[in-house]
């Protein structure tokens, strides 16, 4: 019969092992999700490239671009969009981006600017609403596998806020996927739109525009914004899965280490018990033979 101590240690080992099963499963899931998210980022690339090309050509073909969405105006109210995840267990993914955004918000407030806060993902919403920030709009359930429809929804909302002069600029705080091991929180100014620079050789082409360049530009810019937001969401999603994979890998490794230590402890306890038993038996036999 195992003693109370051994039984207790064994129970702990079992509990750590079942946690380990979960973290390992999450690690595997995240790994496959990264690959999928990366593919989606790659697939969206041609659209983004072509969009940039069209805008460059528009700028080169007509006498420079002019549109309200391109014009910088004095910033009274700043729109801040924070892209976080819906679920935790992703290491520092959420806290890094939230911390960065909060710093920036404080800086802007100290500079006398008003803030309008938009959040993507439950984590950012929970953090800021707990701290009594007023949240203009919160989107949930988009960051796991963002679709273009999600980007359109978010794009339209911030566009509307900008056009109605509720905000005078929009900055997005998101996480860039640098590599599987590195994801970097960044500030991404999306409004006013900074058009891509025209290159030399494209400037020479004379395009025929149907309808006018202005009309095309007016249609194009909202799409461009949506495309930008879509890119941001896709990359944030890839980053989230990468961060989760790393956190879960570390958790699994810790659990393995813990099981190793606990097993050793259990063995020691068992051995101590046997030794005690033997010495008791030997002691008993000695006493009997002596008597």
């Amino acid at each position: 019969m195992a003693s109370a101590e051994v039984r207790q240690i064994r129970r702990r080992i079992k509990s750590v092992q079942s946690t380990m099963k979960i973290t390992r499963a999450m690690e595997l899931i995240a790994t496959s999700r990264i690959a999928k998210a990366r593919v989606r980022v790659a697939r969206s690339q041609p659209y983004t490239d072509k969009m940039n090309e069209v805008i460059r050509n528009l700028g080169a073909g007509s006498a420079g671009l002019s549109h309200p969405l391109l014009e910088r105006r004095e910033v009274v109210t700043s729109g801040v969009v924070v892209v976080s995840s819906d679920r935790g267990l992703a290491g520092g993914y959420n806290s890094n981006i939230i911390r960065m955004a909060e710093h920036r918000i404080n800086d802007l407030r100290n500079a006398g600017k008003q803030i309008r806060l938009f959040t993507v993902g439950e984590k950012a919403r929970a953090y800021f609403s707990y701290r009594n920030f007023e949240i203009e709009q919160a989107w949930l359930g988009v960051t796991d596998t963002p679709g273009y429809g999600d980007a359109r929804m978010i794009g339209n909302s911030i566009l509307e806020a900008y056009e109605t002069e509720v905000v005078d600029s929009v900055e997005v705080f998101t996480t860039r996927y640098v590599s599987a091991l590195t994801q970097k929180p960044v500030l991404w100014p999306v409004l006013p739109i900074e058009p891509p620079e025209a290159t030399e050789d494209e400037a020479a082409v004379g395009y025929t525009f149907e309808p006018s360049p202005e009309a095309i530009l007016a249609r194009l810019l909202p799409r461009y914004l949506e495309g930008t937001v879509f890119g941001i969401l896709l990359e944030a999603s890839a980053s989230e899965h990468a961060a989760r994979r790393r956190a879960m890998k570390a958790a699994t490794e810790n659990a393995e280490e813990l099981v190793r230590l606990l097993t050793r402890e259990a063995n020691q306890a068992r051995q101590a018990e046997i030794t005690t038993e033997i010495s008791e038996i030997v002691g008993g036999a000695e006493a009997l033979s002596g008597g």
Partner: protein
Amino acid sequence: MAGKLFRVDVVAPEAIVYSGDAQFISARTTEGDIGILADHEATMAALATGPVEIHDADDNVTTIGIHGGFLQIYANSVTLLTDRAEMTEGGRDEALRLAEELKEAQQRAVEASGSN
């Protein structure tokens, strides 16, 4: 006999819908229908709701329903940039129907987001 060919790419945010060589394509712009053969002048146009037909080198016709987007013609390369496109086997009428459906879907989405 196949005419002179040019490159066609139909690009959507989540995938490339179509990519290949064609001898003729037709599309509906905001200004009216446009037919494009090889060596077309450099053009940029806004797309309306309607069918796009692509006749490839073997005279096979691919039809795509499109709602909104942009068309760029430059140096025998045609790019259709759209966020709503759906390919169909059902010919021009089916493509038009799909395009109308995409349009309705968008209007519903706008109404839904407006009522929040």
